[in-house]
């Protein structure tokens, strides 16, 4: 038995697969394979393993949570044409399984991703807290793209905290930080000014400033005339 490792798992699940006619199942399965072929192309073969589930596929992505998130988002985008797909993302323990060690994979990383995908509605992507943390470690700040989407209990009664993507979240966060920068800068400089005025009084402080910057003195004189 091989040692376990932590990897990102993207579980792409076809909605209501079991309830569909077999001809439709075959069509959807073929469509899903086409989507997986396109979306996994940008991840190097050394870093991804495609596993088969009866109602979808699970893609194990090694050491690249950003790649896993991109893959899931692209899969959902390209699945718009009649493929009711949902995606579950998780980062957790996986392990090679099977007698030869290459027949399959097992692990909690896969189980949770499957549960998350089961919970997501069609065309929706949900990620676990573990995946968000892994994303934060791999690309600090990028985790902000995943915003809270609620909690749910899986069939094993485990509670999962879920996050969904928000395309504008990164821009909003950047704007918030910029505003914080401006406010802090103004506050700190203002505090310096206030301290100086309180110590020296307004008149001497203004004179000292005008002496230091001759342009200001000329400006004040111009305004007085």
């Amino acid at each position, binding site marked *: 038995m091989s040692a376990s490792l932590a990897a990102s798992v993207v579980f792409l699940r076809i909605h209501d697969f079991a309830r569909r006619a*077999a001809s439709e199942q075959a069509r959807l399965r073929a469509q899903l394979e086409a989507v997986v072929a396109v979306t996994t192309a940008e991840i190097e073969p050394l870093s991804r393993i495609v596993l088969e589930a009866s109602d979808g596929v699970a893609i194990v992505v090694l050491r690249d949570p950003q790649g896993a998130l991109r893959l899931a988002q692209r899969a959902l985008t390209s699945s718009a044409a009649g493929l009711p797909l949902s995606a579950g993302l998780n980062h957790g323990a996986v392990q090679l399984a*099977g007698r030869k060690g290459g027949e399959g994979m097992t692990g909690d990383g896969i189980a949770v991703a*499957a549960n998350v995908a089961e919970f997501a509605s069609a065309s929706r992507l949900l990620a676990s807290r573990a995946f968000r943390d892994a994303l934060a470690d791999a690309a600090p700040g990028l985790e902000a793209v995943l915003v809270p989407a609620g909690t749910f209990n899986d069939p094993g009664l485990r509670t999962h905290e879920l996050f969904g993507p928000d395309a504008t979240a990164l821009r909003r966060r950047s704007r918030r930080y910029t505003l914080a920068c401006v406010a802090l800068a103004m506050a700190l400089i203002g505090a*310096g000014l206030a301290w100086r005025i309180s110590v020296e009084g307004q008149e001497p402080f203004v004179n000292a400033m005008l002496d230091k910057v001759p342009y200001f003195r000329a400006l004040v004189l111009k305004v007085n005339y």
Partner: protein
Amino acid sequence: MAKKSDKRIGRYKLLGELGRGAMGIVYKAEDPNLDRVVALKTIILVDDAAGRKEYQKRFFLEAKAAGKLNHPHIVTTYDFGEENGIAYLAMELLEGKDLRARLQEGVLPAAEAVDIAKQVAEGLGYAHERGIVHRDVKPGNIMLLGRGRAKVMDFGLARMRMADHKTSTGMVLGTPKYMSPEQVAGSPVDNRSDIFSLGIVLYEMLTGVRLFAGEDAPQIMHNVTYSEHEPPTRVNPALPAMLDFVVARALKKDAAVRYQDAFELAADLGTCLAELRGRAGENGDSTKTVKLEAPDKASPAPAARAIAIDTRLPVSRQFDSAAALRRIAETKGKYRAPRRLGWFRRLLGDAPARRLVLTTLAAGLAGAWIAFPGWF
């Protein structure tokens, strides 16, 4: 072999014995009124008077219902009656052999198997539309006639047998090899139970493997309820991939996600049949379904819901994952989970946070320079 005799049951003159079953004997008989040779199925009624009356009543009800079924894939019931404690059914006499005997000769060609299952599904669909559930779909109840025709027999009789074979605790006796999970659980059954049973028969025809086999009835019942089947294409890679989906849907443990209608199953089997015939005629481009490369013999892939219990997923044969698998195998034991980032490294990696810190530092310095000019 049939043997001439003067014995009669009802108005039927017995010509010989065709077979014996759990409920009684099947005779070849002659109906003198219509000058027609029929199969006369006898059922020995129970001994106690109250039970017998009830049993007889139910038998007549079932026989009457079955007698209304008139379909090319259902054996026609002509007549029924009772004489000297023996109930009988006069049925269409078929020249052929049952599927059980055919299976003993070996696996059926895929097209033939699918065609038989399709015909049976059509027959079942017709009966289900009329509110009649077979309850005992198995190879022994499917007759194969000439020109690839198949007929289902013994409609309604299963209910009599079930009642007979139930113990006082409600346990079902007999071999539950072809029963549905709800049937072995003793729950009420409907048309979807027949679909499950037909799924088992189809699987056996396609692969030669008897599903849910076990040493005894409890083990078989356990397998019926909990064991998942291996997709037929893994047992017989020559089969079209679509059959995996058809069999999987027919054999869903949960009746709610199974085929809800035998006609729907027949339609899907019809599509598979078109593909198989297209392949045989080497012009499969007209009705070709998607060809999935048949993988090596490996474990079946569970659905997302089942993965909570069984997390093992097979590697997809459609995509080459050998490089990554090799990478994992080679890094055996050395592959550690990446360490969580500390706040400083996180700060360095996060551009907006870095900007905030740098701006704060710069503004702080500017504020200090203004407040304490002597320091600079």
